[in-house]
């Protein structure tokens, strides 16, 4: 187990290393940060000074080595735009994104799994068909369009919910959280829902197909023959088995939910790190882009690890040692 974790950690650092190189090359390919940041009125001398101040006068490989040296000491550089450490900026914005992504995933599971279970058990009933049609709509609608529709209806026409922003927050552990205040929850409702829409569809489909596959399997027939109650068969035996794909995919999706909140955050003016990264890409604020991506990679590796671990708990047939 320890060996397995260490190996994963080692591989993770490899992934991070490759990624930082890619980001450096990527930003270099996209454009020149100084041209974007500099005041148009600046003359040539001022432009040269800015290039030097941001350390962009060195050849790319030297810039990378400088970055790497500092990164090893825990310094991921200062934002070109904000002149604050990139990590500080990201940590300031992270809670907003995390609560949105977890909220959306949570919403997807509590809505999607029961609906999927129903649709799987009674595949031919009318409500089940309606659920499936709905699930298709769920991931068919472009997030940004849903977002605007929600704002149009609930904020502009009906006036029930605030259109944008984060509302009141509570500070816990030095971070600001919205989900603990009523006002914050109201602000969260629409972005969370629009972000979770496609996840709900996914959860429904995964659960349903899992149920349908498992219901015809021998162990279910056997359990029934043994005289177990249908509830017990479904909720103990089948449920355990369908959770594997659901956990895998929803786990994988959590990361992409965090990444995808980029769009939701910009539609709802939600001040999370997704919005930070879009703004940073627009101005090629490389330190922030690199730091953000490193955070995301680390998060993903953790998620993957947890998914793999839960795999081995849920399905004893898959052993962690099988990777060696």
């Amino acid at each position, binding site marked *: 187990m320890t060996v397995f974790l260490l190996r994963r950690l080692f591989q993770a650092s490899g992934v991070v290393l490759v990624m930082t190189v890619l980001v450096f090359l990527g930003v270099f390919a996209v454009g020149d*940060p100084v041209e974007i940041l500099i005041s*148009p*009125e600046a003359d040539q001398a001022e432009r040269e000074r*800015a290039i030097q101040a941001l350390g962009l006068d060195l050849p790319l490989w030297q810039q990378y080595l400088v970055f790497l040296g500092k990164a090893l000491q825990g310094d991921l550089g200062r934002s*070109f735009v904000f002149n604050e450490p990139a990590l500080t900026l990201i940590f300031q914005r992270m809670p907003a994104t995390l609560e949105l992504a977890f909220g959306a995933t949570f919403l997807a599971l509590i809505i999607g799994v029961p609906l999927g279970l129903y649709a799987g058990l009674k595949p031919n009933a009318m409500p089940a068909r309606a659920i499936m049609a709905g699930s298709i709509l769920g991931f068919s609608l472009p997030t940004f369009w849903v977002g605007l529709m929600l704002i149009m209806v609930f904020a*502009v026409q009906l006036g029930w919910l605030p*259109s944008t922003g984060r509302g009141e927050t509570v500070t816990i552990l030095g971070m600001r959280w919205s989900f603990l205040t009523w006002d914050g929850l109201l602000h969260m409702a629409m972005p969370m829902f629009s972000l979770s829409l496609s996840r709900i569809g996914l959860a429904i489909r995964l659960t349903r197909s899992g149920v349908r596959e498992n219901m015809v399997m021998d162990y279910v027939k056997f359990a029934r023959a043994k005289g177990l109650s249908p509830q017990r068969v479904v909720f103990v035996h089948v449920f355990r088995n369908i959770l594997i794909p659901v956990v895998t995919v929803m786990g994988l999706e959590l990361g992409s939910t965090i990444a995808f909140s980029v769009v939701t955050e910009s539609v709802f003016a939600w001040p999370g790190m997704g919005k930070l990264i879009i703004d940073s890409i627009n101005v090629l604020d490389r330190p922030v882009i690199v730091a953000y991506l490193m955070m995301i990679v680390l998060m993903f590796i953790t998620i993957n690890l947890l998914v793999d671990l839960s795999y081995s708990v849920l399905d004893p047939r898959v052993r962690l040692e099988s990777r060696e």
Partner: protein
Amino acid sequence: MAVGAPITSLDPHYHQLSPNNAVADMIFDALVNRSPRDQGIPGLATSWRAVDSTTWEFKLREGVRFHNGNAFTADDVAFTLARVPRVPNSPSSFALYTRPITAVEIVDAHTIRFKTATPYPLLPTDLANLRIIDKETAENATTEDFNAGRAAQGTGPWRVVEHRNGDRIEFAANAQYWGGAPAFARVTYRMITNDAARTAALLAGDVDFIDQVPTADLARLRREQRVVLSETVGLRIIFLGLDHSRAGATPFITDNDGKPIEPNPLRDVRVRRALSLGIDRAAIADRVMEGAATPSGQFLPAGSFGHVPDLAAPRVNADEARRLLTEAGFPNGFRITLHSPNDRYINDARIAQAIGQMWTRIGLRTSVEAQTWATFVGRAARTELSAWLIGWGSSGGEASNPLRNLVASISREKGWGASNRGHYSNPRVDALVDRAMVELDNPRRETLLREATQMAMDDVGIIPLHIQTNIWAMRRGLQHEARADELTRAQDVRPAR
């Protein structure tokens, strides 16, 4: 109130960027403030004059206090000027405006003199960019101290209460403000960068005031009973840049079979004139901009310093354009690609497409390529393009600014032509600008600037399209003094009478 552009720092000397300057204007004052039409008016200085050809003297306002109670004196001015070039990591420094000053002389607590190497008529204009900070507070302050609000102690009408990076800034009124206390006790300045979301927030009543009203929503907002608009002609010209740099083939113009054309057709003034005459500026202003633009044939709107009164926007004339192209040797036209950003100026990519339609009608097979600003600006800066759409906001509201930056020959020593992406060069224009830059007599200077503008426009160094109208929207019951320089400041809003 909600704004469309993110404020990145409360340090008034960190990043020369309009949204940051707007917030800096709320917290701080400069020696010279700017009127809504961007003319210099007394700020922390009550009067100024040129003592001799290289010395300016400024009389400072007395009895002004910073938010923390410290008195404002000439020491603070000297300190500010010394700090400006030393702000670390600045991606776009204000040192530009301190560089002409060779020496600062404090005459008494409320009189200060600046020496320049050569006669420099633009000094008061430049000083309007430098917001004065408190020496005692900011002695060792970093940009982070400003962002956290600790060091952001100015003399301006608003005090910073809280700054949540990228989300909002909370302000409280400075009741002791020398220009009179603001109309509201508290103001929340929110950043909603998505256009539709910003309009929606206003309609939903979440905010009372928004800037950068999208042109798509203008028609609806004008009908809306709950909302009033405030608007003014801005100082931002949208124009087409052309590649003058290459004698040989330019990369995005080919003949109709896709072969390069030598020499570069854009070096022929007849081709440039044809391109300009092929554009129906009135249709763009009316249909694409929905009225939020004024067609223009020069850099600045009427009423600005250096505006040429009888230089009207060219009217579309497709026949004349075709005749000019034939005369230049292109009876069957050619293929051209027009590049444009798609996230920078109001409707930028839409304007480019409309021009594509119009050029196609004068026989040029036009394709339009729109890119994000991040990609576009680098390509434009390296002059990789042949024709491109771009904009220019003339700060200070006078013609020397666009002349020096956009059409003057590129010169590192003079610091000119830094945004002359097409490498246009006309020695006669340069000579006129040269003379204007050391002319302290305003009427004579304006004549020189007018001549230079007329010359650059006759030669079609750039193709001006229109000047944007700046539009704000607010709930009924408020009124706003619209500003030409696009800055959104809370002190310009007050309850309607």
